[in-house]
Every structure is written in structure tokens, then in C-alpha cells.
């Protein structure tokens, strides 16, 4: 059952040292505020799952929260490298980072299978490339009807899923619109959940008969954090801040600049710091 709470309580409740956690959001609705709170609470030895590690995992890796990364594309979309991720892989800084590397299709299927309560995902993939040589979790399974060999990987079943959505109602039913990514699957595949939302409303708005809604009994913790996806975006609330993504390249390139930025913008701030971004863009849109 959903508990409507504060971000610090939600993270303290759901995220523990050593957990396997999935912050999801495919470009859209990336839970930046929740990422910052996990960093502030000093979680360690996390195994992070995410299709596109992006700025959120660059920050957590750079701050030393992470021991292992399960992923399929680790870059700053349209900009270039994730420098903290590269520093960890290439130089072992701030410490060594274990990699479990997949393709997007594999990751998406692994979330889908996790949501479906299955131990494995079966799909047509990983034909001829080198990833199966470096990832022992990629196996083959033979179709008993056609003899075709298909790829099999373990499903994702994270301890915690963390997502951001547009809105929830007071019971904790969460509605998502736009680029949906794998958020619904990540939530349904996980043991515990933290959902930040732009706003909590008395009733979900008039919606299509097939709107994407996560019922309250599937989301553990629901928290209103306006602007909580910034610099990612929330369709209907504020656009993606592409210039921040470009700026991140300079911030993260240098360890000291990164550390200073994290202190000023994450360690010394709270989730309410995100509200300005929501407001700024709402004002701009009016």
C-alpha cells in the first residue's frame, strides 16, 4: 500500500546499503531529486540497474555510492561521455566499478520478465557479438518447437525501484504520460518503491480508458517533489533542459569541479531545491 511521505523518509525506508536499485526514466521523468537524496543519505555498495545510466548514475558513481552497474548505454545523450563513469571504469576512481553489461533489448526484456514474475527473459538477441563473452549471465535456450536458439538472461528484480511521474492521487495511484520507458516494469519488478511526482491531486484527471496508472498497492512510497526530474523533463510540466546536459560535460570532466558542484547543489541542499526549476519553466510556459 502506498504511503505518502517525505523524500528523506521514503529513501531512508526503502534504500539500504548494499541494495540493488533501479532508478528509471528513459530520458523523460528521470528521478534526479531522489538520486540526490540517496547521495545525501550516504548509501554505499549499491548495485545500480538502469538502461541509460545518464547523469544520475554519473553522480552516484562519482560520489562513491556504487559497487556494481548493470546497464546497456552509459553516455550523456547527444553530448558525449559520462566522465565519472569513465573514471571509475578506466581508472578505478573513486573505486573499482563492477560492470554487468547488456543491450537495450536485453534490459527491457529483463524488466518485463521481472514485472511478469518470471525468473528469466527469453528473446531473439545477442547473435554473433562479444557481449556474451564478457557477461556470463547471457545464456542460450532452445525452442522445443522450432529448435531456434534464443537468448536467455535473468529477469531484473531489484530491491528498490525509484521513478518520477507527473501525478498521484491521495490514495497513491500514480499516473504517467508520454515517454514511458521501463518505469512501470521497474516498479512492478521491485520489492520496494519510491515514486516522486510533480503533484499530488485529489483525483486523477479525466483520462483515457487505458491511461498508464500504477495502482496504489504497487507503489510503496509516494512523495511530491515538484521539479524532481530536472534537468530531465516532465511532459506537461517542464521541458528537458538540454543546456544543463551540455554543461554537465564540463562539470563532471574534472574531479574537483564535480566535487564542488555536488557539495553546493546536492549535499548542501534539499529536495525543495528542485521546485525552482518546475516554477521557472511553468512561468515561462504561461
Amino acid at each position: 500500500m502506498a504511503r505518502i511521505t517525505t523524500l528523506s523518509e521514503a529513501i531512508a525506508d526503502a534504500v539500504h546499503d548494499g541494495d540493488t536499485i533501479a532508478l528509471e526514466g528513459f530520458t523523460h521523468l528521470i528521478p534526479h531529486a531522489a538520486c540526490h537524496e540517496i547521495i545525501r543519505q550516504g548509501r554505499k555498495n549499491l548495485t545500480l540497474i538502469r538502461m541509460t545510466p545518464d547523469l544520475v548514475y554519473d553522480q552516484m558513481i562519482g560520489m562513491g555510492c556504487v559497487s556494481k552497474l548493470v546497464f546497456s548505454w552509459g553516455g550523456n545523450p547527444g553530448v558525449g561521455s559520462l566522465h565519472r563513469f569513465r573514471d571509475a571504469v578506466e581508472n578505478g576512481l573513486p573505486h573499482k566499478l563492477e560492470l554487468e553489461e547488456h543491450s537495450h533489448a536485453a534490459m527491457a526484456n529483463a524488466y518485463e520478465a521481472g514485472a511478469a514474475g518470471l525468473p528469466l527473459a527469453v528473446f531473439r538477441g545477442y547473435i554473433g557479438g562479444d557481449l556474451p563473452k564478457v557477461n556470463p549471465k547471457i545464456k542460450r535456450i532452445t525452442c522445443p518447437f522450432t529448435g531456434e536458439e534464443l537468448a536467455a538472461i535473468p529477469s531484473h528484480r531489484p530491491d528498490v525501484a525509484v521513478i518520477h511521474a507527473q501525478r498521484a492521487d491521495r490514495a497513491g495511484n500514480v499516473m504517467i504520460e508520454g515517454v514511458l520507458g521501463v518505469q512501470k516494469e521497474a516498479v512492478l519488478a521491485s520489492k520496494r518503491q519510491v515514486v516522486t511526482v510533480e503533484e499530488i491531486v485529489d483525483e486523477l484527471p479525466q483520462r483515457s480508458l487505458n491511461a498508464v496508472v500504477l495502482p496504489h498497492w504497487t507503489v510503496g512510497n509516494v512523495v511530491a517533489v515538484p521539479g524532481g526530474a530536472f534537468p530531465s523533463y516532465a511532459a506537461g510540466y517542464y521541458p528537458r533542459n538540454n543546456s544543463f546536459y551540455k554543461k554537465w560535460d564540463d562539470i563532471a570532466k574534472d574531479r574537483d569541479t564535480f566535487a564542488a558542484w555536488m557539495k553546493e547543489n546536492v549535499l548542501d541542499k534539499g529536495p525543495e531545491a528542485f521546485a525552482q526549476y518546475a516554477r521557472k519553466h511553468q512561468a515561462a510556459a504561461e
Partner: protein
Amino acid sequence: MADYKPAEMMTIAAARSLKNDDICFVGIGQPSAACNLARLTHAPDITLIYESGTLATKPTVLPLSIGDGELCETALTTVSVPEMFRYWLQGGRIKVGFLGGAQIDKYANLNTTVVGPYDKPKVRLPGAGGAPEIATSCGEILIIMAQGKRAFVEKLDFVTSIGHVTGGDSRAKLGVKTKGPVKLITDMAVWEPDPVTKEMTVVSIHPGVTREQIQENTGWPVKFAAHVSETPAPTAKELEVLRELHARTNRAHAAA
């Protein structure tokens, strides 16, 4: 003839190889520019699909990321990412896929994973993304890459996604039924696989580029087709539409 950059010639040559009834799985960067240029010129009804789940999208500016709001707002509809990879890509519904990479070999296999050994990389690249399954599930593949000896290599450090594997029928022997790379479009030339050996072969050279320059920017002995044509230079219209698209895009991204 209009003045233009090699990168513009590359995008325009890629755009020309797309048809009005193509259904394309579009990646960010050059493929996105090429596909939208095609849509804004000779292929107004081309179907563009981005792996973020946006089906039949018609962005007015190029997305910076694969899931920009623009793509979703202008799409016929947007599906979840698992559905995109299961029903649409694996389901065999995409005719043309685009790929690029940090390294390519003469059979158009690609590396986007690491430079150097996997466990101790010299450069850690972003990784596979959708490439391994795009490479085998799309009906055919177009590759867009600027030439250079560090990119066009004799042997890949890591095979992220396959092209024609080791040539000949090696791709089909893996059980893959799709065509694989049918064109490699660079800033210097257009390459196509040899019908028998499947080695990528130069079939058309961009205006002003020499065979020697192509060889200098390729890490293996280049095969040229029996008849090599000259790529038609960009038309004024093509350049105008492409530059307006980039200008709109830059304005939009600077504002956001």
C-alpha cells in the same frame, strides 16, 4: 555548386538512400538528421521510430536525446520501451535501422563498447544500447560514420554488433535472416557490400575526394567497385533544408 562541409554531404547522401514508404528505427545524431532531412525533402511520409517508444514521429527540431518531448508530442503514439523492443523491433516491423560506432571493420561489424581490452579499457565507450538487436532485427542496416584510421580498423577491439561477420554467408550461418548493412555512408564515399564476399566496397565517391584520401582514412586495403560513380553534390535545396533544421535545433536547445 554550393559550398558545403563533408559532414553535410554525408548526411545528405544518407537521406537520399531513404524512401517515402520506409519504416526507420532512428538513432540520435547523424541518423536523426538524415531521416528528418529525407522527411522534409523527398520522403514526406517516411515513418520514423525512436527507441524511446515514439511511433511515426515528426519532430520540427532534431532531438538532443532519444526521448525528447518533441518526439513524443509529434508521434502517432508512444509505447513502452519493452513493447518497442518486443513488438516493433524483434517483431520484424522495422525496415531500415541506422547504426554508427567508434570502430568499424571491412565487414561492417561495429564497436561502441571499448577501445583496448574490455577489462582494462583505454577508452570506455557508452556501450551497446540498442545496436546488437537493431543489427539483426531490422530488415536492412544503413551505417553513417566519418572516416579515419582510428575508426576504420582492421580488427575491432570489441564486436558490439554484427554486420557481415567474417564475410560470405557467415551472417546467414548464425541464423540471421535479415540483410545486415546494405550501405556505409561516410564523409568521403558510399560503400556497399560485395555481393559474394560481403566486404564493404566503395561504389560512389563524394565530389572532390580521391581514392588515395579514402585509403589514407581506412585501416585496411580498400576495395573499389568495378564502376565507381561520383556522388551527386548536395543540391541547394538539400543544403538549405538541412541547415535550417540544424539552425532551428540549435536555437531550441540553447533556449531550453
